[in-house]
C-alpha cells in the first residue's frame, strides 16, 4: 500500500503574537513547528503501514528550511520524504497548493493520502479536500477512526459536532484526520539516527510536471481584503443567584425568557 502524508510547516502558535496594527501574525518572532494535526496524519499513516505493509512518504510544499521538519517524520518512521520547493510556487493559496500537492501525489503514486484536518496558521481546512478534487479521488474529512481498510475500500468514522458519521469509500482515497484518531509516537533512537543522515530530496515544479499557470501568487484566486483581531467585550456578564437552587433556577428562567432564549 502506498501511503502519502502531506504536512505543513507552521509558526509555533504557542509562541506567536499578532500585530495589532495589521492584524497579521508576527511570523518572525515565532519558531516553526510541524502543523500539530499533521503529526496525527503521520501516525495514522505509520499504523496503516504496520497493519497492511507498504511505504509511507511524507510530502511538504514550502521553503528549504522545511527539510528539518520532514526529518521529524523520518525519525518517527516514515520511509521517505519529499520537499516541493520552487520560487514559482511562492504565494500559492490553498487552491494552487492543492494543485501542486495533487501533482506530487500523482508522481509518487498513492492508495491513501493523509492530511491533518487543517493547518493552525490559516485554519482553512481546504487543502486536503481540494487535493482530492484535483485527483478526482473520494475524500473523507475529519476522520477520527478507521474502522476497516483493505486494498479496495475503507470504512471510516468522521467526528461531527452532533455525533459520528460512518462513511465507506473506495481506494485510492484522501483522508483528513482529527486529533482524536490516535496519539502520535515520539521519534525513536534508530529513527533519529536515520533522519540525521537522510537527505530530503527537493522537487521543483518540473519534477512534478506542474503547469506554471496554475500556481504562484498570480494564479491564486484568494484575495484577503482585511484581517483583524475581534474586540472582546468585557463586563457584560451578570451573576444570577438566589437563596437556594430552586430560586436561582427560577430567576435564571425569567432572565432567559426576557432575553428570548426560551419561550
Amino acid at each position: 500500500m502506498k501511503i502519502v502524508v502531506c504536512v505543513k510547516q507552521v509558526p509555533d502558535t504557542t509562541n506567536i503574537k499578532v500585530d495589532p496594527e495589521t492584524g497579521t501574525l508576527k511570523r518572525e518572532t515565532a519558531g516553526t513547528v510541524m502543523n500539530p494535526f499533521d503529526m496525527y496524519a503521520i501516525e495514522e499513516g505509520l499504523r496503516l503501514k504496520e497493519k497492511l505493509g507498504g511505504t509511507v512518504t511524507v510530502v511538504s510544499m514550502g521553503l528549504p528550511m522545511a527539510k528539518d521538519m520532514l526529518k521529524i517524520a523520518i525519525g518517527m518512521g516514515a520511509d521517505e520524504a519529499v520537499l516541493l520547493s520552487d520560487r514559482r510556487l511562492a504565494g500559492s493559496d490553498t487552491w494552487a497548493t492543492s494543485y501542486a500537492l495533487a501533482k506530487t501525489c500523482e508522481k509518487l503514486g498513492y492508495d491513501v493520502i493523509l492530511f491533518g484536518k487543517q493547518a493552525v496558521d490559516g485554519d482553512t481546512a481546504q487543502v486536503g479536500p481540494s487535493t482530492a478534487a484535483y485527483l478526482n479521488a473520494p475524500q473523507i474529512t475529519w476522520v477520527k477512526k478507521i474502522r476497516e481498510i483493505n486494498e479496495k475500500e475503507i470504512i471510516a468514522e468522521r467526528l461531527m459536532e452532533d455525533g459520528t458519521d460512518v462513511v465507506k469509500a473506495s481506494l485510492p482515497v484522501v483522508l483528513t484526520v482529527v486529533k482524536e484518531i490516535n496519539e502520535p509516537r515520539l521519534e525513536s533512537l534508530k529513527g533519529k539516527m536515520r533522519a540525521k543522515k537522510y537527505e530530503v530530496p527537493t522537487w521543483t515544479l518540473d519534477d512534478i510536471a506542474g503547469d506554471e499557470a496554475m500556481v504562484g501568487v498570480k494564479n491564486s484566486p484568494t484575495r484577503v481584503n482585511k484581517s483583524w483581531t475581534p474586540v472582546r467585550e468585557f463586563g457584560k456578564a451578570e451573576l444570577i443567584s438566589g437563596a437556594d437552587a430552586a430560586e436561582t433556577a427560577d430567576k435564571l428562567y425569567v432572565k432567559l425568557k426576557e432575553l428570548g432564549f426560551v419561550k
Partner: protein
Amino acid sequence: MNYFLTDEEQMILETSRELAVKKVKPIREHYDAEGIFPWDIVKEMSNLGLCGLYIPEEYGGMAAGGSKGIMQLVLCVEEMSKICGGISLAMAASALGTFPILLGATDEQKKKYLPDIAEGKKLAAFGLTEAGAGSDAGSMRTTAVKKGGKYVLNGTKQWITNGSEAETYTVFAMTDKAKGTRGCSCFIVEKGTPGFTFGKKENKMGIRASATTELIFQDCEVPAENLVGGREGLGFIHAVGTLNHSRPGVAAQALGIAAGALDEALAYSRQREQFGTKISSFQAVQHILANMAVEVEAARGLVYNVARAVDKGATDFAKDSAMAKYYASEVAMRVTTNAVQVFGGYGYMKEYPVEKMMRDAKITQIYEGTSQIQLNEIAAKLIKEQAMKKK
C-alpha cells in the same frame, strides 16, 4: 558544562528527555501515589530503542564499537530520573539484573536471554539480597544443590527490584557453603519456573512506581545450563563485577533526581514572590541554588568520567565507581532536601514534585551498597594502592 557528547549520545539524551517530559511527567504523581508499575513507559522505551543501550549490538543492543554502553545507559537514566526516579528504575534495575549475564554468561546463554531484554520485551531482576544478607552478601543462605541435570534452589531473596514484573532473574545461591564466597554461584531463573514464587509487594517510602518483592524458592528446579558461565563458584565474582558496572547507573539515577530537583527549585524561585519581590532575588536563596548547582555538576563529572572509563575498557574502576555512586547519592539527598527548603511549605506538600524527589533520593544512599559500604570500598582501595606503591 559541555561534556562533548557524541551525536549518538546526544540523540539518546534527547529521546530520553522527550519521553520523560511528554509521557512520564503527566503520570508520575499518580503512579507514585498508587504504586503502579510503569509497563506503559517500558513499552515506550522499547519502541524508542532505549532498552538495550548497554547491551552489545551482536545481542540486539546499542553498545557498539567495543564500548560497554555504560555512558549511554547513564544518559538515559539521568534524563528519565530528572522527571521520575521511580519510573526510570524499571529499565535501570533491568540493567542490574542483566549485568551478571553480560559479564559472566556463556555465548549460548547470552544469545538466549539478551535479545529480548535489549528489545524491551522482557525485564530482568537481580536477586542477591536476603533478610540476613544485606551489606554482608557473603552470609547468604539460599542454596542450590545439583541433582542430575538440574539445580534445586531453596531460600528467599528480599527487596528485589522488578520482582514479579521481570521475566528473567539472575539469582545468587550457595552451591558449596564450606567454600564461603567461593561457593556462591549465579543462576538464570525464568518467571514461571515451578517452585519459584513472589512474596508481598513492599510498601516503600519512595521509588513507589517500582516493584520490590521477595523471590521465594521452594525446591525450585533450574536446568543446569542456566548456571551463569557454566561453572560453579563464580557467583561472588559476578556479583561484585555487576555492582561495579551498575553503580554508575544508580549514580545516574541519583544525579538525575538531584538535577530534576534543582530545575524545579530554580523555576519556583523565579516565580514565587515574598516581601514584594521574587525569592530568587534573595541572596539566601541564591546561595542555596548555587550550591545545589555546583554539587550536581560535580556529581555529573564523576559519573560521566567513570562511565566513559568503563566504556573505554578500564579494568580497575571499582573505587571510581564507588566514588561516583557515593557522591551522587549524597548529593541527591542534600539537593532534594534543599529543593524542599526553597519551596518552603509548598515543598512539603504532595502537590509539588520536590516532596517525591526527596523521598526517591533516599534509596540511592542505601541500595546497591550503602554509602558506608562505598566508603569502605574506597578506603580499602586507597590503602591498598599506597601499600602497593611502597613495594
